[in-house]
Protein backbone atom coordinates (compact mmCIF):
# COMPACT_ATOMS: atom_id res chain seq x y z
CA UNK A 1 0.00 0.00 0.00
CA UNK A 2 2.87 2.43 0.58
CA UNK A 3 4.60 1.88 -2.79
CA UNK A 4 5.12 5.23 -4.53
CA UNK A 5 2.85 5.26 -7.57
CA UNK A 6 3.82 8.68 -8.89
CA UNK A 7 7.20 10.32 -8.47
CA UNK A 8 7.44 14.01 -9.26
CA UNK A 9 11.01 15.23 -9.22
CA UNK A 10 12.27 18.80 -9.46
CA UNK A 11 9.43 19.89 -11.75
CA UNK A 12 9.50 23.54 -12.81
CA UNK A 13 7.16 25.43 -15.10
CA UNK A 14 7.12 29.09 -15.99
CA UNK A 15 4.56 31.16 -17.87
CA UNK A 16 6.52 34.19 -19.04
CA UNK A 17 7.68 35.89 -15.87
CA UNK A 18 5.42 33.86 -13.59
CA UNK A 19 6.94 30.83 -11.90
CA UNK A 20 3.98 28.50 -11.63
CA UNK A 21 6.07 25.61 -10.30
CA UNK A 22 9.56 25.85 -8.85
CA UNK A 23 11.52 22.63 -8.23
CA UNK A 24 8.50 20.69 -7.01
CA UNK A 25 9.24 17.17 -5.79
CA UNK A 26 6.74 14.83 -4.21
CA UNK A 27 5.62 11.22 -4.17
CA UNK A 28 2.09 9.92 -4.32
CA UNK A 29 1.63 6.46 -2.85
CA UNK A 30 -0.40 3.63 -4.30
CA UNK A 31 -3.98 3.72 -3.04
CA UNK A 32 -3.81 6.92 -1.04
CA UNK A 33 -6.00 10.00 -1.08
CA UNK A 34 -3.58 12.84 -1.72
CA UNK A 35 -4.39 16.56 -1.67
CA UNK A 36 -2.62 19.47 -3.33
CA UNK A 37 -3.58 22.46 -1.21
CA UNK A 38 -2.79 26.11 -1.67
CA UNK A 39 -4.22 29.55 -2.39
CA UNK A 40 -5.15 30.37 -5.98
CA UNK A 41 -2.10 30.92 -8.14
CA UNK A 42 0.08 28.57 -6.09
CA UNK A 43 0.66 26.23 -9.03
CA UNK A 44 -1.51 23.33 -7.92
CA UNK A 45 -3.66 23.36 -11.06
CA UNK A 46 -0.54 23.51 -13.26
CA UNK A 47 0.77 20.42 -11.51
CA UNK A 48 -2.55 18.67 -12.07
CA UNK A 49 -2.52 19.58 -15.76
CA UNK A 50 1.03 18.22 -16.03
CA UNK A 51 -0.15 14.90 -14.58
CA UNK A 52 -3.06 14.83 -17.06
CA UNK A 53 -0.77 15.75 -19.96
CA UNK A 54 -2.28 19.13 -20.89
CA UNK A 55 0.86 20.96 -19.75
CA UNK A 56 4.50 20.06 -20.03
CA UNK A 57 7.09 21.03 -17.41
CA UNK A 58 10.13 23.08 -18.47
CA UNK A 59 12.33 20.75 -16.45
CA UNK A 60 12.05 17.84 -14.04
CA UNK A 61 10.59 14.37 -14.36
CA UNK A 62 7.33 12.62 -13.59
CA UNK A 63 7.06 8.84 -13.44
CA UNK A 64 4.08 6.58 -12.95
CA UNK A 65 4.80 2.98 -11.98
CA UNK A 66 8.47 3.84 -12.61
CA UNK A 67 7.78 4.64 -16.28
CA UNK A 68 8.24 8.13 -17.73
CA UNK A 69 4.78 9.71 -17.78
CA UNK A 70 5.79 12.85 -19.66
CA UNK A 71 6.56 10.86 -22.82
CA UNK A 72 2.98 9.55 -22.97
CA UNK A 73 0.39 11.65 -24.87
CA UNK A 74 -2.68 12.65 -22.80
CA UNK A 75 -5.05 10.18 -24.47
CA UNK A 76 -2.78 7.22 -23.62
CA UNK A 77 -2.24 7.99 -19.93
CA UNK A 78 -3.92 5.76 -17.34
CA UNK A 79 -4.86 9.00 -15.60
CA UNK A 80 -8.36 10.44 -15.54
CA UNK A 81 -9.38 13.90 -14.53
CA UNK A 82 -12.60 15.19 -13.08
CA UNK A 83 -12.75 18.78 -14.31
CA UNK A 84 -13.75 21.61 -12.02
CA UNK A 85 -16.44 22.62 -14.53
CA UNK A 86 -17.19 18.88 -15.02
CA UNK A 87 -16.80 19.31 -18.84
CA UNK A 88 -19.65 16.88 -19.57
CA UNK A 89 -20.46 16.53 -23.27
CA UNK A 90 -23.69 18.51 -23.63
CA UNK A 91 -24.82 16.60 -26.73
CA UNK A 92 -24.62 13.17 -25.09
CA UNK A 93 -26.84 11.73 -22.40
CA UNK A 94 -25.50 10.50 -19.07
CA UNK A 95 -24.94 6.92 -20.23
CA UNK A 96 -23.13 8.04 -23.39
CA UNK A 97 -20.96 10.45 -21.45
CA UNK A 98 -19.89 7.63 -19.17
CA UNK A 99 -19.46 5.14 -22.01
CA UNK A 100 -17.30 7.56 -24.05
CA UNK A 101 -14.04 6.58 -22.40
CA UNK A 102 -14.79 2.86 -22.59
CA UNK A 103 -15.67 3.09 -26.29
CA UNK A 104 -12.20 4.55 -26.88
CA UNK A 105 -10.78 1.31 -25.50
CA UNK A 106 -12.80 -0.63 -28.10
CA UNK A 107 -14.38 -2.87 -25.49
CA UNK A 108 -17.25 -5.16 -26.47
CA UNK A 109 -20.63 -3.42 -26.34
CA UNK A 110 -22.01 -5.77 -23.68
CA UNK A 111 -19.11 -5.09 -21.35
CA UNK A 112 -19.44 -1.32 -21.85
CA UNK A 113 -23.14 -1.47 -20.97
CA UNK A 114 -22.43 -3.61 -17.94
CA UNK A 115 -19.74 -1.30 -16.60
CA UNK A 116 -21.83 1.83 -17.26
CA UNK A 117 -24.80 0.29 -15.42
CA UNK A 118 -22.57 -0.73 -12.53
CA UNK A 119 -21.02 2.71 -12.10
CA UNK A 120 -24.44 4.37 -12.41
CA UNK A 121 -25.61 2.19 -9.54
CA UNK A 122 -22.52 3.08 -7.51
CA UNK A 123 -23.18 6.79 -7.81
CA UNK A 124 -26.93 6.34 -7.42
CA UNK A 125 -28.05 7.75 -10.79
CA UNK A 126 -29.47 4.60 -12.42
CA UNK A 127 -32.77 6.27 -13.33
CA UNK A 128 -31.11 9.23 -15.04
CA UNK A 129 -29.08 7.37 -17.69
CA UNK A 130 -30.97 8.96 -20.58
CA UNK A 131 -30.93 12.53 -19.30
CA UNK A 132 -28.73 15.16 -20.86
CA UNK A 133 -26.31 17.13 -18.64
CA UNK A 134 -28.41 20.32 -18.74
CA UNK A 135 -31.32 18.40 -17.21
CA UNK A 136 -29.30 17.54 -14.12
CA UNK A 137 -28.65 19.42 -10.87
CA UNK A 138 -25.14 20.50 -9.94
CA UNK A 139 -24.69 17.57 -7.59
CA UNK A 140 -25.90 15.09 -10.20
CA UNK A 141 -23.57 16.52 -12.84
CA UNK A 142 -20.72 16.16 -10.43
CA UNK A 143 -21.56 12.50 -9.89
CA UNK A 144 -21.68 11.91 -13.64
CA UNK A 145 -18.28 13.57 -14.07
CA UNK A 146 -16.92 11.36 -11.34
CA UNK A 147 -18.49 8.24 -12.85
CA UNK A 148 -17.08 9.09 -16.28
CA UNK A 149 -13.60 9.26 -14.76
CA UNK A 150 -13.71 6.19 -12.49
CA UNK A 151 -15.38 3.89 -15.01
CA UNK A 152 -12.05 3.83 -16.88
CA UNK A 153 -10.43 2.30 -13.78
CA UNK A 154 -7.43 4.64 -14.03
CA UNK A 155 -4.22 4.16 -12.07
CA UNK A 156 -4.60 7.74 -10.91
CA UNK A 157 -7.74 9.83 -10.55
CA UNK A 158 -7.32 13.61 -10.51
CA UNK A 159 -10.03 15.83 -9.07
CA UNK A 160 -9.88 19.57 -9.72
CA UNK A 161 -11.68 21.47 -6.95
CA UNK A 162 -14.30 18.71 -6.86
CA UNK A 163 -16.66 20.30 -4.35
CA UNK A 164 -16.28 24.01 -5.07
CA UNK A 165 -19.37 24.33 -7.28
CA UNK A 166 -21.72 22.64 -4.82
CA UNK A 167 -23.75 24.21 -2.04
CA UNK A 168 -22.85 23.46 1.54
CA UNK A 169 -25.19 20.57 2.24
CA UNK A 170 -24.48 18.68 -0.99
CA UNK A 171 -20.81 19.32 -0.36
CA UNK A 172 -20.80 17.48 2.96
CA UNK A 173 -22.67 14.59 1.34
CA UNK A 174 -20.27 14.37 -1.60
CA UNK A 175 -17.30 14.61 0.72
CA UNK A 176 -18.41 11.44 2.49
CA UNK A 177 -19.22 9.79 -0.81
CA UNK A 178 -15.83 10.57 -2.31
CA UNK A 179 -14.12 8.93 0.64
CA UNK A 180 -16.39 5.90 0.46
CA UNK A 181 -15.80 5.58 -3.26
CA UNK A 182 -12.08 5.84 -2.88
CA UNK A 183 -12.13 2.94 -0.43
CA UNK A 184 -14.47 0.96 -2.66
CA UNK A 185 -12.65 1.29 -5.98
CA UNK A 186 -9.15 1.39 -4.53
CA UNK A 187 -7.94 3.99 -7.03
CA UNK A 188 -5.30 6.53 -6.03
CA UNK A 189 -7.01 9.94 -5.76
CA UNK A 190 -5.30 13.30 -6.11
CA UNK A 191 -7.51 16.24 -5.24
CA UNK A 192 -6.61 19.85 -5.93
CA UNK A 193 -8.22 22.41 -3.66
CA UNK A 194 -7.81 25.84 -2.12
CA UNK A 195 -10.12 24.89 0.74
CA UNK A 196 -8.06 23.63 3.65
CA UNK A 197 -11.04 22.05 5.40
CA UNK A 198 -11.78 20.04 2.28
CA UNK A 199 -8.18 18.88 2.01
CA UNK A 200 -7.91 18.05 5.71
CA UNK A 201 -11.15 16.09 5.82
CA UNK A 202 -10.65 14.15 2.58
CA UNK A 203 -6.98 13.38 2.28
CA UNK A 204 -4.60 10.91 3.84
CA UNK A 205 -1.74 13.26 3.08
CA UNK A 206 -1.67 16.89 2.06
CA UNK A 207 0.96 18.85 0.15
CA UNK A 208 0.75 22.57 0.89
CA UNK A 209 1.89 24.71 -2.03
CA UNK A 210 2.61 28.39 -2.14
CA UNK A 211 4.05 30.44 -4.98
CA UNK A 212 5.02 27.34 -6.91
CA UNK A 213 6.88 25.68 -4.07
CA UNK A 214 6.02 22.78 -1.78
CA UNK A 215 5.89 24.09 1.79
CA UNK A 216 5.06 20.88 3.62
CA UNK A 217 3.82 17.37 2.91
CA UNK A 218 2.18 15.64 5.84
CA UNK A 219 -0.91 13.92 7.17
CA UNK A 220 -3.67 16.34 8.29
CA UNK A 221 -3.00 16.05 12.06
CA UNK A 222 0.76 16.75 11.99
CA UNK A 223 0.12 19.47 9.44
CA UNK A 224 -2.17 21.15 11.92
CA UNK A 225 -0.11 20.52 15.01
CA UNK A 226 3.40 20.94 13.64
CA UNK A 227 3.35 23.36 10.70
CA UNK A 228 6.76 23.53 9.06
CA UNK A 229 6.75 27.27 8.50
CA UNK A 230 4.88 30.49 9.01
CA UNK A 231 2.90 30.13 5.76
CA UNK A 232 1.53 26.72 6.70
CA UNK A 233 0.81 27.84 10.28
CA UNK A 234 -1.23 30.74 8.99
CA UNK A 235 -2.91 28.93 6.09
CA UNK A 236 -4.05 25.78 7.91
CA UNK A 237 -6.70 26.51 10.51
CA UNK A 238 -6.92 29.57 12.74
CA UNK A 239 -3.76 30.59 14.56
CA UNK A 240 -2.51 33.34 16.85
CA UNK A 241 0.78 34.65 15.43
CA UNK A 242 2.96 37.07 17.43
CA UNK A 243 6.37 38.31 16.29
CA UNK A 244 9.22 39.11 18.69
CA UNK A 245 12.77 38.28 19.78
CA UNK A 246 13.59 34.89 21.26
CA UNK A 247 14.76 35.15 24.88
CA UNK A 248 15.94 32.49 27.32
CA UNK A 249 12.48 31.90 28.80
CA UNK A 250 10.14 32.72 25.92
CA UNK A 251 9.40 35.21 23.19
CA UNK A 252 10.10 38.81 24.15
CA UNK A 253 7.61 41.19 22.63
CA UNK A 254 8.31 44.91 23.26
CA UNK A 255 5.50 46.56 25.19
CA UNK A 256 3.81 43.24 25.99
CA UNK A 257 6.28 41.09 27.89
CA UNK A 258 7.58 37.55 27.63
CA UNK A 259 5.23 35.03 26.03
CA UNK A 260 5.57 31.39 27.06
CA UNK A 261 6.88 28.91 24.49
CA UNK A 262 9.48 26.14 24.25
CA UNK A 263 12.84 27.73 23.42
CA UNK A 264 15.43 25.81 21.39
CA UNK A 265 18.92 27.00 22.45
CA UNK A 266 19.94 27.78 18.87
CA UNK A 267 17.08 30.22 18.39
CA UNK A 268 17.94 32.54 21.29
CA UNK A 269 18.62 36.11 20.14
CA UNK A 270 16.83 35.76 16.80
CA UNK A 271 13.60 37.23 15.55
CA UNK A 272 10.81 34.64 15.43
CA UNK A 273 7.06 34.22 15.36
CA UNK A 274 5.11 32.43 18.05
CA UNK A 275 2.11 30.39 16.98
CA UNK A 276 -0.56 29.16 19.36
CA UNK A 277 -3.91 27.65 18.34
CA UNK A 278 -7.05 29.40 19.72
CA UNK A 279 -8.23 26.18 21.40
CA UNK A 280 -4.99 26.12 23.44
CA UNK A 281 -5.53 29.66 24.74
CA UNK A 282 -7.10 29.95 28.23
CA UNK A 283 -9.08 32.87 29.57
CA UNK A 284 -8.85 33.48 33.31
CA UNK A 285 -8.34 35.89 36.16
CA UNK A 286 -4.64 35.46 36.78
CA UNK A 287 -1.33 34.96 34.98
CA UNK A 288 -0.56 35.69 31.32
CA UNK A 289 -1.48 38.90 29.56
CA UNK A 290 -4.15 41.44 30.47
CA UNK A 291 -6.71 42.30 27.84
CA UNK A 292 -10.22 43.45 27.04
CA UNK A 293 -12.82 41.28 25.31
CA UNK A 294 -13.51 42.78 21.93
CA UNK A 295 -15.79 40.19 20.32
CA UNK A 296 -17.64 37.02 21.32
CA UNK A 297 -18.88 34.65 18.60
CA UNK A 298 -21.03 31.69 19.62
CA UNK A 299 -20.81 28.66 17.26
CA UNK A 300 -22.98 26.25 19.28
CA UNK A 301 -20.42 23.72 20.44
CA UNK A 302 -17.73 26.32 20.94
CA UNK A 303 -17.36 30.05 21.43
CA UNK A 304 -14.62 32.15 19.94
CA UNK A 305 -13.45 35.12 22.00
CA UNK A 306 -11.27 37.86 20.56
CA UNK A 307 -9.22 39.71 23.17
CA UNK A 308 -7.44 43.03 22.60
CA UNK A 309 -4.06 42.91 24.36
CA UNK A 310 -2.22 46.19 24.78
CA UNK A 311 0.86 46.21 22.56
CA UNK A 312 -0.37 43.66 20.00
CA UNK A 313 -1.76 44.88 16.69
CA UNK A 314 -4.04 41.86 16.24
CA UNK A 315 -6.48 40.58 18.89
CA UNK A 316 -5.68 37.14 20.36
CA UNK A 317 -8.28 34.47 19.63
CA UNK A 318 -9.39 31.91 22.20
CA UNK A 319 -11.80 29.07 21.52
CA UNK A 320 -13.65 27.82 24.57
CA UNK A 321 -16.06 24.89 24.85
CA UNK A 322 -19.75 25.73 25.06
CA UNK A 323 -20.96 29.19 26.01
CA UNK A 324 -18.73 31.55 27.95
CA UNK A 325 -19.22 33.82 30.96
CA UNK A 326 -17.19 36.70 29.52
CA UNK A 327 -18.95 39.48 27.70
CA UNK A 328 -17.97 42.31 25.40
CA UNK A 329 -15.79 44.88 27.21
CA UNK A 330 -14.89 42.59 30.15
CA UNK A 331 -11.34 42.66 31.44
CA UNK A 332 -9.73 39.23 31.26
CA UNK A 333 -6.33 37.58 31.28
CA UNK A 334 -5.03 35.41 28.44
CA UNK A 335 -2.66 32.52 29.02
CA UNK A 336 -1.38 29.27 27.52
CA UNK A 337 1.06 26.50 28.38
CA UNK A 338 4.51 26.93 26.94
CA UNK A 339 4.30 23.42 25.45
CA UNK A 340 1.17 24.33 23.44
CA UNK A 341 2.93 27.14 21.60
CA UNK A 342 5.63 26.83 18.95
CA UNK A 343 8.25 29.08 17.44
CA UNK A 344 8.61 29.56 13.70
CA UNK A 345 11.47 31.29 11.92
CA UNK A 346 10.76 34.54 10.09
CA UNK A 347 11.83 33.85 6.53
Amino acid at each position, binding site marked *: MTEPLVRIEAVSRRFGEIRALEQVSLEIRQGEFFALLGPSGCGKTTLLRIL*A*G*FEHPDSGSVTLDDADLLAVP*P*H*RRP*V*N*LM*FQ*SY*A*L*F*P*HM*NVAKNIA*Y*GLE*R*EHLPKAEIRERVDAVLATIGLTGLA*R*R*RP*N*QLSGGQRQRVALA*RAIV*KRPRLLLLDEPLSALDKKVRAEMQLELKRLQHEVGITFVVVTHDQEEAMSLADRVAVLSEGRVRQIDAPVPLYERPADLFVADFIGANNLVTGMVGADGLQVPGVGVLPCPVPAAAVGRAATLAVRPERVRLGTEGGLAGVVRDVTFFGGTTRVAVDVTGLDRPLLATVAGATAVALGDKTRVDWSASDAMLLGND
Partner: protein
Amino acid sequence: MSATRTPPRAARRERLVGRLATLGPGLGYLTVFMLVPLALVLGYTLFHRGRFGGIVYEASADNYTRVADGLYLGVIWTSVKIAGITTLLALLLGYPTAYLIAQLPRAWRTVALVLVVLPFWTNFLIRTYAWIILLNSEGIINRALTGLGIIQRPLELLYTQGAVVGGLLYAYLPLMVLPLYSAIERLDPQLREASANLGARPARTFWSVTLPLTLPGALTGCVFVFVPSLGNFVIPELLGGGRTVMVGNLIRDQFLKARDWPFGSTLALIVIALLVLLLMAQAWAARRLTDGTDRA
Protein backbone atom coordinates in the same frame (compact mmCIF):
# COMPACT_ATOMS: atom_id res chain seq x y z
CA MET B 1 -51.67 50.47 -0.08
CA SER B 2 -54.21 50.64 -2.88
CA ALA B 3 -53.56 54.33 -3.31
CA THR B 4 -49.88 53.74 -4.16
CA ARG B 5 -50.51 50.71 -6.35
CA THR B 6 -51.80 51.08 -9.90
CA PRO B 7 -55.13 49.26 -10.41
CA PRO B 8 -54.74 46.09 -12.53
CA ARG B 9 -56.62 47.32 -15.58
CA ALA B 10 -54.58 50.50 -15.83
CA ALA B 11 -51.41 48.47 -15.33
CA ARG B 12 -52.39 46.17 -18.15
CA ARG B 13 -53.12 49.10 -20.42
CA GLU B 14 -49.80 50.66 -19.51
CA ARG B 15 -48.02 47.40 -20.34
CA LEU B 16 -49.81 47.18 -23.67
CA VAL B 17 -48.83 50.76 -24.54
CA GLY B 18 -45.26 49.97 -23.53
CA ARG B 19 -45.18 46.90 -25.73
CA LEU B 20 -46.64 48.73 -28.69
CA ALA B 21 -44.10 51.50 -28.26
CA THR B 22 -41.21 49.05 -28.43
CA LEU B 23 -42.61 46.53 -30.92
CA GLY B 24 -44.62 49.03 -32.96
CA PRO B 25 -41.93 50.42 -35.27
CA GLY B 26 -40.63 46.94 -36.09
CA LEU B 27 -44.11 45.55 -36.65
CA GLY B 28 -45.04 48.53 -38.80
CA TYR B 29 -41.94 48.12 -40.92
CA LEU B 30 -42.57 44.40 -41.40
CA THR B 31 -46.22 45.01 -42.29
CA VAL B 32 -45.50 47.69 -44.89
CA PHE B 33 -42.38 46.19 -46.45
CA MET B 34 -42.93 42.48 -46.06
CA LEU B 35 -46.51 41.40 -45.39
CA VAL B 36 -48.16 43.77 -47.87
CA PRO B 37 -45.74 42.98 -50.76
CA LEU B 38 -46.04 39.29 -49.97
CA ALA B 39 -49.84 39.55 -50.09
CA LEU B 40 -49.56 41.40 -53.41
CA VAL B 41 -47.28 38.71 -54.82
CA LEU B 42 -49.69 36.05 -53.64
CA GLY B 43 -52.59 37.95 -55.19
CA TYR B 44 -50.87 38.45 -58.56
CA THR B 45 -50.23 34.73 -58.95
CA LEU B 46 -53.97 34.18 -59.45
CA PHE B 47 -54.30 36.58 -62.44
CA HIS B 48 -52.65 36.76 -65.85
CA ARG B 49 -50.83 39.17 -68.10
CA GLY B 50 -52.75 41.44 -70.41
CA ARG B 51 -51.83 41.66 -74.08
CA PHE B 52 -49.72 44.82 -73.61
CA GLY B 53 -48.43 43.98 -70.18
CA GLY B 54 -50.48 44.97 -67.16
CA ILE B 55 -52.67 42.61 -65.29
CA VAL B 56 -56.00 41.09 -66.16
CA TYR B 57 -57.93 40.47 -62.97
CA GLU B 58 -59.50 37.13 -63.81
CA ALA B 59 -58.71 34.51 -61.23
CA SER B 60 -57.29 31.19 -62.44
CA ALA B 61 -54.62 28.64 -61.53
CA ASP B 62 -53.00 28.89 -64.98
CA ASN B 63 -49.70 30.26 -63.66
CA TYR B 64 -49.23 27.22 -61.46
CA THR B 65 -49.88 24.73 -64.24
CA ARG B 66 -47.42 26.69 -66.38
CA VAL B 67 -44.69 26.35 -63.70
CA ALA B 68 -45.19 22.58 -63.77
CA ASP B 69 -43.74 22.72 -67.32
CA GLY B 70 -40.44 20.88 -67.51
CA LEU B 71 -38.62 24.00 -68.71
CA TYR B 72 -39.32 26.01 -65.58
CA LEU B 73 -38.92 23.10 -63.21
CA GLY B 74 -35.57 22.47 -64.89
CA VAL B 75 -34.45 26.03 -64.19
CA ILE B 76 -35.51 25.75 -60.57
CA TRP B 77 -33.70 22.45 -60.27
CA THR B 78 -30.52 23.89 -61.83
CA SER B 79 -30.70 26.81 -59.40
CA VAL B 80 -31.11 24.53 -56.40
CA LYS B 81 -28.22 22.40 -57.69
CA ILE B 82 -25.88 25.39 -58.20
CA ALA B 83 -26.81 26.93 -54.84
CA GLY B 84 -26.39 23.51 -53.20
CA ILE B 85 -22.95 22.90 -54.70
CA THR B 86 -21.92 26.43 -53.71
CA THR B 87 -23.11 25.82 -50.15
CA LEU B 88 -21.31 22.48 -49.91
CA LEU B 89 -18.04 23.95 -51.20
CA ALA B 90 -18.42 26.93 -48.85
CA LEU B 91 -18.83 24.52 -45.94
CA LEU B 92 -15.81 22.43 -46.95
CA LEU B 93 -13.66 25.55 -47.37
CA GLY B 94 -15.21 27.56 -44.54
CA TYR B 95 -14.94 25.00 -41.76
CA PRO B 96 -11.14 24.61 -41.82
CA THR B 97 -10.78 28.39 -42.25
CA ALA B 98 -13.00 29.13 -39.26
CA TYR B 99 -11.32 26.40 -37.22
CA LEU B 100 -7.83 27.75 -37.90
CA ILE B 101 -8.89 31.31 -37.13
CA ALA B 102 -10.32 30.15 -33.79
CA GLN B 103 -6.94 28.59 -32.91
CA LEU B 104 -5.01 31.82 -33.52
CA PRO B 105 -3.83 34.02 -30.65
CA ARG B 106 -6.60 36.45 -29.70
CA ALA B 107 -5.10 39.53 -31.36
CA TRP B 108 -4.57 37.71 -34.67
CA ARG B 109 -8.13 36.39 -34.70
CA THR B 110 -9.46 39.93 -35.10
CA VAL B 111 -7.02 40.58 -37.95
CA ALA B 112 -8.07 37.36 -39.68
CA LEU B 113 -11.78 38.15 -39.30
CA VAL B 114 -11.28 41.64 -40.71
CA LEU B 115 -9.51 40.05 -43.70
CA VAL B 116 -12.45 37.69 -44.18
CA VAL B 117 -14.98 40.54 -44.39
CA LEU B 118 -12.64 42.95 -46.19
CA PRO B 119 -13.99 42.13 -49.71
CA PHE B 120 -17.41 43.41 -48.58
CA TRP B 121 -15.95 46.90 -48.54
CA THR B 122 -15.63 46.86 -52.33
CA ASN B 123 -18.67 47.07 -54.58
CA PHE B 124 -20.17 43.69 -55.40
CA LEU B 125 -20.36 44.39 -59.17
CA ILE B 126 -16.74 45.50 -59.34
CA ARG B 127 -15.62 42.32 -57.63
CA THR B 128 -17.66 40.25 -60.08
CA TYR B 129 -16.14 42.10 -63.05
CA ALA B 130 -12.74 41.31 -61.60
CA TRP B 131 -13.61 37.64 -62.01
CA ILE B 132 -14.37 38.23 -65.70
CA ILE B 133 -10.89 39.71 -66.10
CA LEU B 134 -9.41 36.68 -64.39
CA LEU B 135 -11.37 33.97 -66.22
CA ASN B 136 -11.72 35.48 -69.69
CA SER B 137 -10.11 33.57 -72.63
CA GLU B 138 -7.73 36.55 -72.89
CA GLY B 139 -7.70 36.81 -69.10
CA ILE B 140 -4.88 36.58 -66.58
CA ILE B 141 -5.26 32.86 -65.84
CA ASN B 142 -5.36 31.75 -69.46
CA ARG B 143 -2.49 34.01 -70.48
CA ALA B 144 -0.37 32.77 -67.60
CA LEU B 145 -1.07 29.14 -68.46
CA THR B 146 -0.39 29.56 -72.18
CA GLY B 147 2.66 31.68 -71.41
CA LEU B 148 4.06 28.91 -69.24
CA GLY B 149 3.32 26.44 -72.00
CA ILE B 150 1.05 24.34 -69.82
CA ILE B 151 -1.83 24.64 -72.28
CA GLN B 152 -1.87 25.38 -76.04
CA ARG B 153 -5.29 26.96 -76.42
CA PRO B 154 -7.05 29.06 -73.78
CA LEU B 155 -9.44 27.14 -71.51
CA GLU B 156 -13.11 27.97 -71.49
CA LEU B 157 -13.36 29.24 -67.96
CA LEU B 158 -15.84 32.05 -68.21
CA TYR B 159 -19.52 31.54 -69.05
CA THR B 160 -19.69 28.08 -67.50
CA GLN B 161 -21.61 26.70 -64.53
CA GLY B 162 -18.28 26.37 -62.79
CA ALA B 163 -17.69 30.09 -63.13
CA VAL B 164 -21.13 30.78 -61.63
CA VAL B 165 -20.44 28.47 -58.69
CA GLY B 166 -17.03 30.06 -58.24
CA GLY B 167 -18.49 33.56 -58.28
CA LEU B 168 -21.22 32.69 -55.78
CA LEU B 169 -18.70 30.90 -53.57
CA TYR B 170 -16.41 33.90 -53.64
CA ALA B 171 -19.26 36.27 -52.84
CA TYR B 172 -20.80 34.33 -49.95
CA LEU B 173 -17.94 32.42 -48.30
CA PRO B 174 -17.62 35.01 -45.49
CA LEU B 175 -21.25 34.33 -44.57
CA MET B 176 -20.21 30.73 -43.90
CA VAL B 177 -17.00 31.53 -42.06
CA LEU B 178 -18.47 33.99 -39.57
CA PRO B 179 -21.19 31.84 -37.93
CA LEU B 180 -18.85 28.83 -37.97
CA TYR B 181 -16.10 30.85 -36.31
CA SER B 182 -18.46 32.02 -33.60
CA ALA B 183 -19.62 28.44 -32.94
CA ILE B 184 -16.08 27.03 -32.80
CA GLU B 185 -14.75 29.88 -30.70
CA ARG B 186 -17.57 29.46 -28.17
CA LEU B 187 -16.82 25.77 -27.69
CA ASP B 188 -15.41 25.12 -24.20
CA PRO B 189 -11.78 24.02 -24.71
CA GLN B 190 -12.15 21.78 -21.66
CA LEU B 191 -14.53 19.56 -23.62
CA ARG B 192 -11.70 18.71 -25.99
CA GLU B 193 -9.37 18.14 -23.06
CA ALA B 194 -11.97 15.90 -21.45
CA SER B 195 -12.22 13.89 -24.66
CA ALA B 196 -8.44 13.43 -24.82
CA ASN B 197 -8.36 12.57 -21.14
CA LEU B 198 -10.90 9.82 -21.76
CA GLY B 199 -8.66 8.26 -24.39
CA ALA B 200 -9.71 9.88 -27.66
CA ARG B 201 -7.13 10.71 -30.30
CA PRO B 202 -7.37 14.23 -31.79
CA ALA B 203 -9.27 12.99 -34.88
CA ARG B 204 -11.81 11.15 -32.71
CA THR B 205 -12.25 14.26 -30.55
CA PHE B 206 -12.98 16.25 -33.70
CA TRP B 207 -15.63 13.83 -35.00
CA SER B 208 -17.28 13.09 -31.66
CA VAL B 209 -17.08 16.40 -29.83
CA THR B 210 -16.01 19.41 -31.89
CA LEU B 211 -18.02 18.72 -35.05
CA PRO B 212 -21.37 17.79 -33.46
CA LEU B 213 -21.23 20.77 -31.12
CA THR B 214 -20.50 23.21 -33.96
CA LEU B 215 -23.12 21.78 -36.36
CA PRO B 216 -25.73 24.43 -35.46
CA GLY B 217 -23.21 27.07 -36.57
CA ALA B 218 -22.59 25.13 -39.77
CA LEU B 219 -26.34 24.96 -40.45
CA THR B 220 -26.66 28.71 -39.97
CA GLY B 221 -23.75 29.24 -42.37
CA CYS B 222 -25.36 26.93 -44.94
CA VAL B 223 -28.62 28.89 -44.85
CA PHE B 224 -26.71 32.19 -45.08
CA VAL B 225 -24.97 30.96 -48.25
CA PHE B 226 -27.80 28.96 -49.85
CA VAL B 227 -30.51 31.61 -49.61
CA PRO B 228 -28.72 34.47 -51.45
CA SER B 229 -27.13 32.00 -53.90
CA LEU B 230 -30.50 30.64 -54.96
CA GLY B 231 -31.97 34.04 -55.72
CA ASN B 232 -28.88 35.66 -57.23
CA PHE B 233 -29.17 36.82 -60.85
CA VAL B 234 -26.16 39.13 -61.26
CA ILE B 235 -23.48 36.46 -61.05
CA PRO B 236 -25.21 33.98 -63.43
CA GLU B 237 -25.68 36.85 -65.86
CA LEU B 238 -22.10 38.16 -65.73
CA LEU B 239 -20.14 34.93 -65.21
CA GLY B 240 -22.64 32.51 -66.74
CA GLY B 241 -23.11 34.68 -69.82
CA GLY B 242 -26.81 33.94 -70.05
CA ARG B 243 -26.03 30.30 -70.72
CA THR B 244 -26.64 29.37 -67.13
CA VAL B 245 -30.10 30.66 -66.32
CA MET B 246 -31.00 30.54 -62.67
CA VAL B 247 -34.42 31.13 -61.22
CA GLY B 248 -33.38 34.65 -60.21
CA ASN B 249 -32.75 35.56 -63.85
CA LEU B 250 -36.04 34.01 -64.83
CA ILE B 251 -38.01 36.04 -62.28
CA ARG B 252 -36.27 39.27 -63.21
CA ASP B 253 -36.96 38.65 -66.90
CA GLN B 254 -40.64 37.98 -66.24
CA PHE B 255 -40.99 41.28 -64.43
CA LEU B 256 -38.74 43.51 -66.54
CA LYS B 257 -38.64 41.95 -70.04
CA ALA B 258 -41.73 39.81 -70.52
CA ARG B 259 -43.74 42.21 -68.35
CA ASP B 260 -45.60 39.19 -67.02
CA TRP B 261 -45.96 40.17 -63.37
CA PRO B 262 -48.39 37.38 -62.50
CA PHE B 263 -46.05 34.64 -63.71
CA GLY B 264 -43.00 36.35 -62.18
CA SER B 265 -44.91 36.48 -58.89
CA THR B 266 -45.69 32.79 -59.14
CA LEU B 267 -42.04 31.90 -59.62
CA ALA B 268 -41.03 34.23 -56.78
CA LEU B 269 -43.63 32.67 -54.50
CA ILE B 270 -42.29 29.20 -55.24
CA VAL B 271 -38.74 30.28 -54.38
CA ILE B 272 -40.02 31.89 -51.16
CA ALA B 273 -41.88 28.69 -50.28
CA LEU B 274 -38.72 26.64 -50.89
CA LEU B 275 -36.68 28.90 -48.62
CA VAL B 276 -39.31 28.89 -45.88
CA LEU B 277 -39.27 25.09 -45.95
CA LEU B 278 -35.48 25.18 -45.75
CA LEU B 279 -35.51 27.57 -42.78
CA MET B 280 -38.03 25.38 -40.99
CA ALA B 281 -35.84 22.34 -41.57
CA GLN B 282 -32.82 24.26 -40.28
CA ALA B 283 -34.65 25.44 -37.17
CA TRP B 284 -35.87 21.92 -36.49
CA ALA B 285 -32.41 20.42 -36.95
CA ALA B 286 -30.75 23.07 -34.79
CA ARG B 287 -33.26 22.46 -32.00
CA ARG B 288 -32.73 18.75 -32.36
CA LEU B 289 -28.97 19.18 -31.99
CA THR B 290 -29.00 21.49 -29.01
CA ASP B 291 -32.03 20.67 -26.87
CA GLY B 292 -31.80 18.76 -23.66
CA THR B 293 -33.92 15.72 -24.39
CA ASP B 294 -32.57 12.63 -26.01
CA ARG B 295 -35.10 11.10 -28.35
CA ALA B 296 -32.76 8.55 -29.85
